[in-house]
């Protein structure tokens, strides 16, 4: 009896280690770096982490819906770029001499935001329709969309980088709540990310849309038999995803104070990696918003660690790629049928 219990415990520990291997490894790495390098455990580094995580978390939230339904969205990064460029064109300071659209009157930040959300939303809806009605595999459909969006972005920006934003736009990303007496603590970015996180949590757990999404991911044919409107749900998922990319791009542009066609390059893979590390299964039907947040955090911490260790950025890519593959491999191990 005691022996059995011991075996059970050993099995549980092993399972825990295998399920959270990457998170544990990166946490250990962070501790090691933190105790050997200066300034790792500093407030500025923490704020820096939060600012980097916030837009990426919003983008990863978008991708998570696609992944949960066994799809993917490779157009995320380029959509982020398109959104950043469109925001730039709309929200350059009227006094700035190099304006992309000199004829444009002053556009309020809010109107600019709505405009980019709507435009990217349309592309997302197209993604959804192609996947739901034409049955093009999501990998291919969004790969095509990635290229289309990139091309379109090159055309409208004439491949020129843009800057000279109005203050009210950059303030969205660079402002802080409680600025002053206690110093810079809570960036607006974090608040926006938190609101999005709460909204997504509600959507995934408390609404029909969320339940239908998990059902499709769990078993699309069964969901259809159960009366779920599969095409409508998929379209909503890809549309919402694109709107979140647009918001992410809008914020990234504000944060950087500039944008070009290269903005957002590679973000889709980071987002997919973060989701997978956070337990969103590529096998479908499984994934939580809290997991997505953990995944993004862990991935960002890895990047910061590598920076502190002064690893050549070229090697950083290799490390990130490895993490993605290992994360998916470990995830799939959980679901492989034990024959």
């Amino acid at each position, binding site marked *: 009896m005691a022996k059995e219990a011991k075996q059970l415990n050993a099995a549980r520990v092993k399972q825990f280690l295998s399920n959270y291997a990457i998170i544990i490894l990166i946490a250990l790495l962070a501790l090691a770096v933190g105790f050997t390098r200066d300034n790792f455990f500093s407030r500025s580094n923490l704020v820096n982490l939060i600012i980097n995580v916030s837009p990426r978390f919003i983008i990863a939230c978008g991708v998570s819906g696609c992944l949960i339904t066994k799809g993917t969205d490779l157009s995320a990064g380029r959509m982020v770029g398109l959104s950043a460029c469109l925001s730039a064109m709309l929200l350059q300071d009227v006094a700035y001499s190099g304006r992309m659209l000199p004829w444009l009157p002053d556009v309020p930040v809010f109107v600019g935001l709505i405009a980019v959300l709507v435009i990217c939303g349309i592309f997302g809806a197209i993604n959804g329709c192609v996947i739901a009605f034409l049955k093009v595999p999501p990998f291919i459909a969004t790969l095509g969309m990635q290229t289309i969006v990139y091309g379109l972005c090159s055309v409208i920006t004439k491949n020129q980088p843009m800057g000279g934003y109005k203050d009210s736009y950059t303030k969205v990303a660079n402002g802080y709540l409680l600025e002053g007496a206690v110093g810079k603590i809570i960036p607006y970015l974090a608040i926006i990310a938190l609101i999005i996180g709460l909204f997504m949590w509600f959507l995934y757990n408390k609404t029909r849309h969320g*339940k239908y999404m*998990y059902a499709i991911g*769990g078993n699309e044919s069964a*969901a*259809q038999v*159960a009366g779920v409107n599969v095409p409508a749900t998929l379209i909503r998922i890809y549309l919402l995803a694109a709107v979140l990319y647009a918001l992410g791009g809008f914020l990234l542009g504000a944060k950087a104070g500039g944008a070009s066609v290269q903005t957002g390059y590679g973000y889709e893979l980071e987002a997919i990696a973060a989701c997978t590390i956070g337990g969103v299964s590529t096998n479908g039907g499984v994934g939580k918003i809290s997991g997505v947040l953990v995944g993004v955090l862990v991935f960002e911490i890895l990047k910061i660690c590598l920076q502190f260790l002064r690893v050549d950025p070229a090697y950083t890519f290799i490390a990130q790629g490895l993490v993605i593959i290992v994360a998916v491999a470990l995830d799939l191990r959980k679901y492989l049928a034990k*024959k």
Partner: protein
Amino acid sequence: MSEYRLEMRNVVKTFPGVKALDHAQLRLRPGTVHALMGENGAGKSTLMKCMFGIYHMDEGEIFYEGQPVHIKDPLDALHHGIAMVHQELQPITERSIGENIYVGRYPLKQIGPVKIIDHKKMYEDAARVLEEVHMNFDPRAKLGSLSVSQMQLVEIAKAVSADCKVLILDEPTSSLTAGEVEALFTIVEELKSKGVAIVYISHKMDEILRISDEVTIMRDGQYIGTWAAKELTTDMIITKMVGRELVDLYPKRKNVPGEEVLQIEDFTSINPKSFRNVTFSVRKGEILGVAGLVGAQRTELMEGLFGLRCHSKGTITYKGEELKINRPADAIKKGIAMLTEDRRATGILGVLSIADNVSISSLNQYLIGGIMLDDKKIEQLVQDNVAKLSIKTPSSKTLIQSLSGGNQQKVLISRWLANNPDIFILDEPTRGIDVGAKYEIYCIIEELARQGKSIIMISSEMGELIGMSDRIMVMCDGRVTGFIDGDKANQENIMELATQFEAV
């Protein structure tokens, strides 16, 4: 030399939530036909899949000619001279008959440094093998051009071509016509005389008693015993299989069929090979059984009614109203529910909880303010159903895939009950469910009928159809070939209608 060609001892195999094999055993003598019998879910196919290397046993040993062997995959099994004809066909319909026979072990020829497939030899060999089993198909024809029963014969040819020492036939006659069954038996006799040990799985008693030398009976994954076929009678086999008297296999039916509620007229698929010109009706509180061989298009017909498949013409009239059903949501809205045949593929949402699985079709009923789901109401619904259908589960948060087949089926029935439908289409409702749970499912079906629901039940188990139906509709090759009243139905008159193929 061992007395046995192949021996399996103390085989244990557990799937999540169900012990499929519990110290099962089997001993095969060379040159004999060994029937393996048991109810659906008794573990016959699982045992054979262990022998064939598709599943790995948790415990147990296999001896081949007295030597312990470890079979790691089907290719390994073939190398040991074990071949298997599966219950469910796995045809590659777009490739030729010859390629299907030799897939995975194509004859090769050396051209310079590389080995390439020797197509000429493959087709010559295929032609010879087909001839050996008395089939004269062109091995270069696409497999898809054959009928289902012909494909089954090709599968048998494939097993024969492997020059096997042990041949497993898992329900080989389920889709064969009487003439084809005779041809199969001739082949089996020939193989027997060559010393092949044959495992024969079938539900058809007369076949078993006619062709087999020995019979091993299994129940609930356990070994019950092995007898010489001569010593057994049909009744003895059934009693041993079921483990209790046959009388209480089905509940007493107290449902009273009322007026006609659903009329289907001239219902025809867009696929000319599928269901066509189907006309039938169902009464309130009636259990209508649907019989037919594999390939009779029963499932396709029901999926057509439920909006999962397209139809080209025909009408569905429900209580005088003509229904337009293009997708399942339309059917559900009108009060039709369907339990699909393949629970895993199109029924359960495996990685989701029981609560999610029960509520998914009726979420509109639990909204607060039109948006937010009321978790308490959903939990109440689940608890009600868990109690009402006595679903055995630790909690409503348990993943449905960890339940046994019978409990999964009950969860799916709960899903539909939440919508309060009037018509239940049940496609093989007790497939892969153990004996005890089957009886519970029958009781649920009977009670639904007693409440005035109309039940359409497809089943391939004759006993179930005869025991449960008020009326039986028989289909053959996409057409309805007749109706039989439940109390007049027997194996013979059903089979007669089920094999009324149109003259080509």
